[in-house]
């Protein structure tokens, strides 16, 4: 079987979520190709060609693919889909937007957000906000999949020497066009790939108080997350949201501050290696998944935590 992975990138660098998607592809196919669709994205194609286990990199370049809309990207994917029995993309907003459009055009029932490949036609995925783990089998000849990238190890970024094959991108559809992107510039690590994540919930109380979360994140070199309740309350931007309807994270260390632990939040972080919860409510459900729970007022505990971490760092440096 042959699989095609649609690469996520920004025309300069390959997003590491692509590496985990390649791993998922290799679990079901002997031959894995990667499609890089973009503009001035040669460097991305070269990066993709070095991924271990990749056979070919298909490079489609056109000005309208610089910031591609799903309509145009779909046409490009369809021109190269024919040779592959499986099409995969990361279950990020990029892949979630694109792949169902591709699947419908191919008359394939897509399987979203897979966490395990059991057989080339059988996969595991969660439903009901992570409450139920299902096994799904497809009867279609072809499969279209999005991949929960925290559930698969990243393929080695070096070691491969795939051929780069240019492919022609179809013209723009004219149905939709990119206007602009508003990105929150940040020096912090990216949330979905960070080694440490510090998240705040409704208990943080206000947007201003989130500065406390930021201080702890900086002390730990962490990315910042938030519960849906905190986002709904306007304390934090939506791209910080961790959970069923936001991002899925699985860092080495997840620190939940003032988060009660609604099932929708747990769905996004319960695969973290070590979970720390700080909450003044001893009954909060977050404590049921926490490796280390501290029942305390976050406004007292977090500053002390920052101070003690800084002290260890100073002593380590000395």
């Amino acid at each position: 079987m042959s699989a095609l992975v649609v690469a996520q990138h920004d025309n300069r660098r390959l997003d590491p979520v692509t590496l985990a998607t390649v791993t998922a592809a290799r679990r079901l196919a002997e031959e894995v190709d990667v499609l890089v669709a973009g503009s001035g994205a040669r460097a991305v194609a070269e990066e993709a060609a070095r991924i271990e286990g990749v056979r070919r990199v298909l490079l489609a370049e056109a000005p309208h693919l610089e910031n591609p809309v799903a309509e145009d990207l779909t046409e490009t994917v369809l021109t190269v889909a024919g040779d592959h029995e499986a099409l995969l993309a990361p279950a990020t907003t990029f892949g979630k937007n694109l792949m169902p459009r591709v699947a419908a055009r191919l008359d394939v029932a897509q399987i979203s957000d897979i966490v395990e490949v059991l057989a080339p036609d059988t996969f595991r995925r969660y439903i009901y906000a992570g409450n139920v783990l299902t096994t799904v089998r497809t009867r279609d000849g072809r499969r279209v999949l999005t991949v929960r990238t925290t559930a698969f190890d990243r393929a080695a970024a070096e070691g491969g020497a795939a051929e780069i094959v240019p492919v022609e991108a179809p013209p723009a559809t004219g149905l939709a066009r990119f206007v602009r992107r508003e990105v929150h510039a940040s020096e912090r690590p990216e949330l979905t790939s960070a080694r440490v994540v510090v998240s705040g919930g409704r208990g943080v109380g206000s947007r201003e108080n989130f500065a406390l979360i930021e201080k702890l994140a900086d002390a730990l070199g962490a990315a910042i997350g938030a519960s849906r309740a905190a986002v709904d309350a306007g304390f934090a931007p939506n791209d910080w949201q961790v959970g069923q309807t936001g991002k899925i994270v699985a860092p080495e260390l997840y620190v939940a501050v003032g988060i009660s632990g609604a099932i929708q939040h747990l769905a996004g972080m319960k695969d973290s290696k070590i979970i720390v919860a700080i909450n003044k409510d001893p009954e909060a459900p977050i404590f049921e998944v926490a490796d280390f729970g501290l029942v305390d007022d976050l406004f007292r505990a977090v500053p002390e935590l920052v101070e003690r971490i800084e002290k260890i760092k100073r002593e380590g440096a000395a």
Partner: protein
Amino acid sequence: MKILVPVKRVVDPNVKVRIRADGRGVDTTNLKMAMNPFDEIAVEEAIRMKERGLAREVVAVSIGEPRIQETLRTVLAMGADRAIAVETEVAVQPLEAARILRAVVAREEPDLVIMGKQAVDDDSNQTGQMLAALLGWPQATFASRIEIVDGEAEVAREVDEGIEVIRVRLPAVITTDLRLNEPRYASLPNIMKAKRKPVERTTPADLGVDPTPRLEYVEFAEPPKRQAGIRVESVEELVAKLVEKGVIG
């Protein structure tokens, strides 16, 4: 402008579902049901467009067992003009739902379809994109702001990196994200009024669509449980544990 709003009836997101004893499904008998929260946001947005004079008519559609009529009554009470119930006992999956909705669109000819980005039961996040693909229409997924400008929709999309703004030609399919709006509660007079609004009943067969699912859900299981952790008594103890685990220091 005419707006079509597809809505799904799901288990109330605050209720924990149980797996059937035979592991072949989820037991939803006697569970509290609700409108999918993202679809509620879609209904609210469509009604606001009507209130602003942008839309002339808001039509709701739902697919499922006959009790979807209850959900459609809620949509009518929120302010939709009429509703279509596509009745089937089959648990319809996204591709078939998109094909049913395409048939409804062919009949109703809306200028805009607004629907939730995902249903909180199967968490697939597919139907809107699939519907747009089948219709050959543009899509604007995960919307947090919608403006109609010069016969196009300008949509701010919630993406992993922040916000992406795109323009789509109409007709189009837009899927909603959480921050688009806060849905209203239906008032008592509007609930009474909704009882007189028309709900048309049809079936997938009437619409020429076979709703048989293509994906087979062969097993349902509890997710792996995390080992219970410990309570620490102080920040000092917490830091000591984290140093011991090698995650700080």
